[in-house]
């Protein structure tokens, strides 16, 4: 008897390189997928979704997705919605910044210790959504 493959939450950061916030989205994603919940989560390359890669589109349709966006354009969320992905939740780094006004991130190439703390705060928010029932 074959076991149904357990679905993983797909954490999708944006691709922005204009500001530190884009880098923070990716750092938060790797904290979740690499350290905190490596067996329950995965990520995809957002540009692959933008170019309609079949395997990537299938992945976001078959698994609950959590987007992590660095600016108001919300590219990660919009790309998932456009391809009818299972959007379970969204994280906006701008909200994380507002909630932590004393933390000042560095720059795009080096987010610094405060940027790392912001990434961890964003990762905690992702964990909360992962724990919620779909």
């Amino acid at each position, binding site marked *: 008897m074959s076991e149904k493959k357990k679905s993983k939450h797909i954490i999708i950061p*944006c*691709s*922005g*390189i*204009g500001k530190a916030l*884009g880098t923070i989205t*990716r*750092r938060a994603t*790797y904290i979740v997928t*690499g350290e905190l919940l490596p067996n329950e989560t995965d990520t995809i*390359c*957002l*540009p*692959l*979704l*933008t*170019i*309609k*890669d079949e395997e990537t589109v299938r992945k976001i349709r078959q698994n609950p997705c959590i987007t992590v966006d660095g600016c108001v*354009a*919300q*590219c*990660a969320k*919009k*790309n998932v919605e*456009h391809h009818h992905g299972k959007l379970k939740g969204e994280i906006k780094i701008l909200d994380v910044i507002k909630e932590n006004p004393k933390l000042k991130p560095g720059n*795009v*190439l080096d987010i610094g210790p405060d940027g790392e703390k912001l990434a961890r705060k964003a990762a905690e928010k992702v964990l909360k959504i992962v724990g919620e029932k779909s």
Partner: protein
Amino acid sequence: MVSRVATRRILEERDDVVTICLPLFLAGGQKERDFAKNNPCITVDGCDKMCAAKGVEMYGKVHPKSSIAISEITKKEKHSKPKSKSRIEPEDEKLVHETMKIINKEVDKVKEEE
């Protein structure tokens, strides 16, 4: 990571180049999609999936003026692939510099042709 870091550093060194978020081609409006049509594009891809090059063709309906693939640079120059996804380690700097050299060369070539 290497493609982003190399691109970002070029942006900080030169004042004659800009960049665009690739996913913005889909998430943004016509203005973003016209960006590729109205500006000569040089794409920098981290792997052989070539998302940036394909994105320019798909949404801008034009071919990039030049396509750079980091995977080809690592093969040709025998660089080892970066181990970390989150940061550029000291041993990756050579690959970043090599990529920047190629991007600069391509930008100068495109400018000459325009």
